[in-house]
């Protein structure tokens, strides 16, 4: 783990702003889904045993589920 916090470090109910990505080699889907730097989101659910997380981008009623490994690739601004 680097010193940057990622989506994976949030608890349910916490809000974050996407800052960037841990590597260049992340799925194109992340970009296409609009999980881009500057987007504000809330982590709404987490499943136990390092299961997937569920986030909701601000003003969007749909949620996006990410595996813990993908969630850890997306960095958030430190607050």
């Amino acid at each position: 783990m680097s010193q940057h916090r990622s989506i994976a470090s949030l608890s349910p109910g916490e809000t974050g702003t996407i800052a960037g990505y841990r590597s260049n080699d992340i799925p194109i889907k992340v970009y296409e889904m609009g999980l881009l730097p500057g987007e504000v989101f809330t982590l709404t659910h987490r499943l136990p045993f390092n299961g997937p997380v569920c986030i909701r981008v601000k003003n969007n009623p749909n949620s996006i589920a990410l595996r813990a490994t993908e969630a850890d690739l997306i960095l958030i601004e430190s607050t």
Partner: protein
Amino acid sequence: MTEMKIALVGNPNVGKSTIFNQLTGLRQKAGNYPGVTVERKTGTFTHQQVKYQLIDLPGAYGIHPSSLDEEVVYRVLADPQNSNYPEKVVVIGDPFNLKRSVLLYQQIREMGLPAIFVINMIDEAERAGLVIDVQQLEKVLATKVLLTDARAGKGIDELRAALQHQPGEYATAFDIPEEYTASVAQTKQITGARNNYNAWLTLSQKHHRYLPADQADELATLRKDQGINYHRLQIQETLARYTKLDQQLATAVKDTTKKRENATARLDRLLIHPFWGYVIFFALLLLIFQAIYTWSGPFMDAIDSGFAWLAASTSELLPAGPFNGLITDGIITGIGGIVIFIPQIAILFIFISLMEESGYMSRVVYLMDRWLKPFGLSGKSAVPLMSGAACAIPAVMSARTIENDKERLITILVTPFMTCSARLPIYIIIIGLVIPQTKFMGLDLQGLVLFGMYVLGVVAALGSAWVLKQVMKTSYKSYLILEMPTYKYPVVRNVLYNVWDKTMGFVLGAGKIILAISVILWVLGSFGISERFTNAEEIVRMENPGIDEEAFENRVQSERLEYSFLGSMGRAIEPLIEPLGYDWKMGIGLISSFAAREVFVSTMATVYSLGGTDDELTIRERMGAEINQNTGWPAYNFASGISLLLFYAFAMQCMSTIAIVRKETNSWKWTFIQLAFMTGFAYLAALLAYQMLK
């Protein structure tokens, strides 16, 4: 009358199929795209003297494919020679993810296709306080923009009328980065692409399997020489478009509300709860299987006795002889064996399409991912595995949404272990014959055993997935990024279309096989060349002097069956299946049901009715009364019944599945491994069960 080909394109979950159903009604059909088995839905309708042919393309987030589904979208839209290449595209977007939909729209326009833009679910946008400036958007997109609420049928007439709209001149929103212009020009030379953007798309594609081999080779060399990472190109394009769109759309959509606490968030607190989410999911599964068993009962009984009555009265009506036998024992019994499945299949598909329509299915993917991952599967495998509970053929096809090759292959290989509806009639009849009709802890024992058979299918699927994961050593990257849409009341029309589609697909597809096999069985069972067949009457008379007339008739009938072509085939494999507790008559069933499992019940009906003279008995009564000639016990006793249940649980008794797996994996090797593994395992399990229980 002029004709026009229109393609519907859009992100998943935007209500694309609702619009498709609204436009075409029942004038639609499902087929496959040439070369791949991605389901192709087409429909037609006529509006103002123009006949429109509508193609419903699979959902896609962008034009860069990251799954087989998305590859189909790219291939149809990129190639004017493609038989599905549309003259116009309707891009459907949802108001909350407008940027994402416009991205796809831009890509399609820049490929050189005229398109109009539809924003669906406008009712939700209004309720949430979103204000969309249509005129502003039309200016940005240089085309007609329509607002629809397809679920209520609003805006559909306007959409029909707008199909003739000629979009205005479109200015490209993405300039190919300077460092790539040379490579793009070279690509254009290699492939003869229509414009620079199409060449750029070819250059940034992962697979080039649709291109001629020499072109693909040249491109591979080009990419290697220039050090081009296709993934980078895709990211660069997507980011550039989004950056521009942020400014362009800033004035087109106004969000007037601050806080949005919706019903979906409240429902999700329960439905994807770390504990209650699972409890609810498994309770729902149990409910579905209890419903299939109990709700279908009366319908099945009615169909069963209806066909028995039909066969008996037809037999009386027609003059006696071989033709009478063909109609009553062959065709009517065969059709009865198809129709009897309709209630269960329909009930199962009602539940599956309700789950898909309501948005619950994507929650299932989310809930199951963590638990399927250790078996080499992904949460997305949950959908093929659950659809496998209906039929392995569409289920294997639905695995195409899985992006990762290895996860997809494992999913395809293990899905046929899931308890498909073709196993259901066998299970129901055998369970009805060998499991007592009592209650166990307040639940119907027969229903519980049936549930147990489903659990067994899941265990077999996961177990073999785990084995495959250990064997297949490729290093791979797997991910899950999944949109979970808001919950919606299912549109009754969509559910009914889906249930109708799937049920008719089964009846016509499997029905053809069943009917053909029934007729073949009848022919093979009614003719023979051996001495004991042709002279059956004399031989029976000689061996049983003083037998009364009715018993004589029965003996002659069964003697004929035993020495017919069919009987010879059954007796040929009898040594192999005797240790499993079956006799040669059941052997006939095993042989014919290699084509499709469901044939077993209708085969047994044909075999037993050929061997007897009473036509009034239902299939169930006939099977219950049958005696195994080797052991002298009822043919369907507890031990042989359990053995038969296990055999059908594991064996690959379905030619259509074999064919579809070959097509989807594009590999005979995996197809044969699957066949040998499943049937071998089934034989061992059935052998063990019978030898221990008898």
